[in-house]
């Protein structure tokens, strides 16, 4: 295949990626967009087997290459297929991380290959790819661990932490200069090591609520490394694809931060400004009003309007079908039922929509935060199922807490508030929820699905 044809096909794949992103931005075309992107990636991958810059086909090491692809498929496809909906966000983080790692490795190999013959701009692009790719790799692993709850979801902040981070960053940049001037292999490996450390330190102090924003940011970073790798390898396709992801990822990060009411700056530089917090929680023993399934059923039965607020616990308990049953039952009794969907309920944006769509909840019943908030004063019961942070008034009242400033669902305006959760434990952000102690709140302890099943039978028995 001629170089021209090869690059033309690459450009075609780039166009498919543009159309893919465009498609993914609209609900109706999203799936088609994703498939288009997959088609573009497939075409680009197949094409590379039919062109070699040294003119020799088949490619050198062809067997190894195919083998490695097979290994990647064997790991990636089942992971993506089998993962629980609840674990998707961390899987995305992980996929992003390995992409960053791959870009860093590609740059390292090309650097080893070019040796002293590399031009300064190519070396700079290599260094950029290694730093950002490695940072993205290790940072994504940490977000994965946080989301998977293999480590604490709270900001990890230690005394003097910000100096350590700043020091690592400076060391990384210094080492980058060393690589550019010396063109040695050792400096490059040191650089990779430092960047990995920086990635960890960068993500550790990020608060739980900011994790999806950080994933999106690292995603944009990885895009840029791919673009830089494209420069090193002289591939228009990689430049276009990487830049696209970098730019759209940056915008997306900003949009997500806005949707969650977070400042992007605060999220990014949280690492430098966060102070160790008194997050011990006084292990309070204040009284709460705990009720039975019958109490809850009665409250619901005499309501005119009920707003259901689902959260991460609904996903954990896989109670989406049961909640739908309850809602249908209430509707059948002439009660006005709506779901109040907070943009960051669950562990990824749109998590609740996905979950409830699975149970065929009618789309009209799902109300976004801005729609549902004004209706709480006319609501008799707010039924909170496995949600916590998204209704926590601390977001309004406690400056300095990890979710301060995030808009919340104003359930306290409703006549009665019912919480379905297993314990008094806090939510993702790890902070107490005053609303649990409010006199108008009733708590029904237990797994969401079990509790809902009981409430449904109690309602039927009424």
């Amino acid at each position: 295949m001629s170089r021209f044809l090869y690059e033309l096909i690459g450009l075609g794949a780039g166009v498919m990626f543009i159309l893919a992103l465009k498609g993914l931005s609209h609900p109706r075309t999203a799936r088609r967009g994703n498939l288009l992107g997959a088609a573009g990636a497939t075409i680009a991958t197949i094409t590379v087997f039919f062109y070699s810059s040294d003119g020799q086909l088949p490619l050198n090491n062809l067997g190894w290459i195919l083998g490695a692809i097979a290994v990647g498929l064997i790991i990636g496809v089942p992971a993506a297929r089998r993962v629980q909906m609840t674990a998707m966000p961390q899987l995305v983080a992980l996929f992003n991380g390995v992409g960053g790692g791959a870009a860093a490795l590609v740059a390292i190999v090309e650097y080893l290959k070019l040796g002293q013959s590399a031009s300064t701009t190519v070396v700079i692009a290599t260094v950029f790819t290694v730093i950002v790719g490695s940072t993205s790799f290790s940072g994504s692993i940490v977000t994965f661990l946080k989301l998977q709850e293999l480590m604490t979801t709270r900001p990890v902040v230690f005394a003097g932490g910000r100096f350590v981070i700043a020091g690592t960053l400076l060391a990384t940049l210094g080492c980058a200069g060393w690589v550019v001037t010396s063109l040695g292999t050792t400096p490059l490996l040191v650089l990779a090591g430092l960047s990995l450390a920086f990635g960890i330190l960068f993500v550790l102090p990020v608060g739980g609520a900011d994790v999806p924003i950080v994933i999106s940011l690292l995603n944009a970073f990885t895009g840029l490394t791919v673009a830089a790798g494209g420069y090193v390898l002289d591939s228009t396709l990689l430049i276009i694809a990487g830049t696209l992801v970098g730019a759209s990822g940056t915008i997306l990060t900003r949009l997500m931060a806005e949707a969650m009411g977070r400042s992007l700056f605060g999220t990014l530089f949280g690492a430098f400004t966060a102070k160790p917090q008194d997050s011990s929680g006084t292990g309070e023993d204040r009284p709460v009003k705990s009720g039975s399934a019958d109490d809850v059923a009665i409250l619901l039965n005499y309501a005119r309007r009920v707003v259901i607020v689902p959260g991460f616990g609904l996903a954990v308990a896989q109670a989406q079908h049961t909640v739908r049953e309850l809602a249908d039952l209430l509707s059948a009794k002439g009660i006005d039922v709506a779901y109040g969907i907070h943009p960051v309920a669950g562990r990824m944006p749109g998590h609740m929509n996905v979950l409830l769509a699975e149970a065929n909840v009618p789309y009209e019943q799902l109300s976004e935060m801005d729609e549902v908030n004004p209706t709480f004063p006319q609501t008799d019961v707010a039924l909170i199922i496995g949600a916590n942070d998204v209704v926590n008034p601390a977001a309004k009242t406690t400056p300095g807490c990890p979710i301060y400033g995030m808009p919340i669902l104003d359930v306290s305006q409703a006549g009665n508030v019912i919480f379905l959760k297993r314990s008094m434990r806090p939510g993702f952000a790890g902070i107490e929820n005053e609303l649990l102690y409010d006199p108008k709140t009733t708590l029904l302890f237990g797994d969401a699905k079990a509790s809902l099943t009981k409430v449904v039978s109690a309602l039927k028995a009424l």
Partner: protein
Amino acid sequence: MEAMAIISIFTLSIFVGFEVVSKVSSTLHTPLMSGANAIHGVILVGAIIVADHSDNSLELGLSLAAIVLATINMVGGFVVTDRMLEMFKGKGAKNKGSGDK
């Protein structure tokens, strides 16, 4: 390719990237992020190119590692995005699907 051409392509791609996603609704943030994530898995192409160039086992080993990682990124990314969107679809098909095309 000439430096100037690369800079132009880079600049224009930034604009395309910005414009294309700037109106997305918050429900689609995750699938969009995940789809974009899959797209950068196309670094697989770069990994294959360097594997082709490799002529010692260190280089080859690193390239193959890059291929494995990039494949996971790319294929896993598209599959997981499709799964997410499949769930949305139920809703779309029933309530809005008619207006499609």
